[in-house]
């Protein structure tokens, strides 16, 4: 029933209410992310030209999007010249099948993967596992959530929602360690030892792509742990998976993006490794898969095409007061937070139509975005589209219509406010009024401003 559907809370609100119920844990989650936001501020403010870099990055990305097909063609031509095999995937299904084909051609059944939100978007792990191919996520955070059979809750810090004791328990449970420990150093060393074996046994490595350079056909991967490179340089086959929008025109543009990315994401001046993969090693295969999956549609959307500028730094999540207090899982989508709330409705408006409302439109996300996406304005735009799609005569639409009428018509306004004065406080502050669950309701004044002014002018 349409009315009941609208009466009930959206999914995000439901999840968020549960999350926030654990007050101390919410504080812990909020403070962890605020800490990263602070690190970002420190790093960003240490560069005098920070705002100029943001503007340059925004312009480069916008320009690229207006000439996307040219740059994609240029990239493919140059990469191919370098001995890289370039594949085009219309959608997630095709993407996964391409990966499978590459692996099966060489009878590979063990793969190591480094951080790639795109492969999350495609649910690649589940697909390969269903084909009896072992795929191990080798980023510590990604590996932890893989062991827990959970998706990442943040695009840069996948396990930010887990406490170290929980990770220690997990490692003991999965026989990564013999004893249960909550010491991060001990746990990290244990993962180094365990995963090294996986690198040894795997014949293929899959990575994401931070930037692909049209001019040179190379792909750039930014990491901290060393696992992505370990995979690529010790494998027969390397596969780099990227969304169409990761293209930038020239190598020199990396100067702008490499100065913005890590500072925005973690507050580091640069990631430990900035790897520029251009040609396969002798005797090895190198593949790049270009994924569409809706991007060629989104680029024509006048309201939301600039969301394709996103370089997946996660800064918007770290700053979002709602994300910090509700966690990545409250968004029910591969990518959470402000940028996720803009991408998700274009994938499935019915399922994710609540996300653009999970925001106060405070605008903090827009101000931290290194490529200056007007995130909070796009959330506002989505609200208009979603409300229209929900149609007329829903409870929300009728409520807003009534409100508009009352506010438009002076007599109606005076009548309703006059009546409101007589609603007793015990009703106003009861369970019926959702406002009053956590707040006292403001008192309607005996003399409104307008009635005071009317009287004053009469005198």
């Amino acid at each position, binding site marked *: 029933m349409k009315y009941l559907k609208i009466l009930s809370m959206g999914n995000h609100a439901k999840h968020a209410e549960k999350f926030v119920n654990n007050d101390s844990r919410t504080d812990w989650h909020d403070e*962890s992310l605020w800490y990263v936001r602070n690190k970002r501020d420190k790093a960003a403010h240490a560069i005098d030209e920070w705002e100029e870099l943001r503007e340059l990055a925004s312009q480069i990305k916008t320009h690229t999007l207006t000439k996307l097909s040219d740059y994609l063609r240029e990239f493919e031509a140059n990469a191919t010249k370098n001995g890289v095999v370039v594949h085009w995937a219309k959608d997630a299904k095709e993407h996964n099948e391409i990966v499978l084909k590459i692996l099966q051609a060489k009878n590979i059944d063990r793969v190591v993967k480094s951080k790639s939100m795109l492969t999350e978007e495609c649910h690649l792990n589940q697909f390969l596992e269903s084909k009896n191919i072992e795929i191990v996520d080798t980023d510590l955070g990604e590996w932890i959530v893989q062991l827990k059979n959970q998706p990442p809750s943040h695009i840069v810090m996948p396990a930010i929602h887990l406490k170290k004791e929980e990770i220690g328990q997990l490692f003991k449970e999965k026989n990564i360690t013999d004893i249960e420990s909550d010491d991060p150093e001990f746990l*990290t060393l244990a993962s*180094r030892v365990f995963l090294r074996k996986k690198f040894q046994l795997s014949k293929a490595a899959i990575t994401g792509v931070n930037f692909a350079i049209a001019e040179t056909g190379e792909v750039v991967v930014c990491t901290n742990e060393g696992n992505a490179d370990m995979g690529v340089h010790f494998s027969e086959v390397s596969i780099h998976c990227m969304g169409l929008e990761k293209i930038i025109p020239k190598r020199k543009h990396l*100067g702008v993006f490499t100065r913005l990315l890590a500072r925005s994401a973690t507050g*580091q001046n640069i990631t*430990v490794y900035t790897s520029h993969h251009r040609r396969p090693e002798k005797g090895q295969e190198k593949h790049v898969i270009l994924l569409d999956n809706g991007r060629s549609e989104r680029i024509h959307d006048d309201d939301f095409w600039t969301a394709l500028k996103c370089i997946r730094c996660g800064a918007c999540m770290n700053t979002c007061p709602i994300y910090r207090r509700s966690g990545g899982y409250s968004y029910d989508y591969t990518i959470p937070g402000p940028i996720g709330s803009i991408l998700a409705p274009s994938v499935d408006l019915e399922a994710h139509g609540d996300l653009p409302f999970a925001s106060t439109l405070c605008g903090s996300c827009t101000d931290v975005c290194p490529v200056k996406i007007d995130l909070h304005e796009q959330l506002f735009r989505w609200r208009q589209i979603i409300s229209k799609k929900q149609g007329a005569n829903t409870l929300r639409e009728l409520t807003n219509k009534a409100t508009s009428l009352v506010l438009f018509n002076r007599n109606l306004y005076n009548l309703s406010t006059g009546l409101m004065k007589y609603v007793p406080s015990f009703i106003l502050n009861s369970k019926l009024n959702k406002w009053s669950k956590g707040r006292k309701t403001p008192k309607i004044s005996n003399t409104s401003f307008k009635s005071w002014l009317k009287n004053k002018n009469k005198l």
Partner: protein
Amino acid sequence: MTSKEYILNKIDKKSREEVSLPQMKLFEDNQYNLLKTFTNECISIGASVVDVKAGNHIPNVLKTLNSKVPIVDLVNKFDLDFSTNEVVDDLYGQDVVFAEGEYGIAENGGIWLDTTKMIHRGLLFSCERLVLLINRKNIILNMNILYDRIGSYDYDFGVLIAGPSKTADIEQSLVIGAQGAKELIVIIE
């Protein structure tokens, strides 16, 4: 229709007015003492720095590391009794690995390596301890300047390495030494 054609057709279905590409800037700034800034950055990201201006020469520095196995010299720079130019291509068995970088970046302590002439690339990542040599004349301020310098390099694989490997994936606790090198020693000559 191939997927490529499908995708490109979809993108070209409607064209958008071209936004012009901005001019790149180098953001050079003379107020910085490049060597000092670079050294401080290296230290802050967990690397140790040895400046051999003081007359130590490099093999001596390498010797003091007491590598458990012969130091793998990826760039064939030395011929020492405790170094080797041969690589056993596996993920175990290295301790100290040595390479030479082309540029040091003062703003982030990173060292750019063009690996084209290296005998093995993976060892940069699989070793326990990594030693990178950089000439002080080649320390530049920032990444804009780096890419200006290497803009037309024809490398197979290039990498900027800044500090030893690390992770903060467990409750934001920084752990130095994740999957890659646990230590990075920067030698400035």
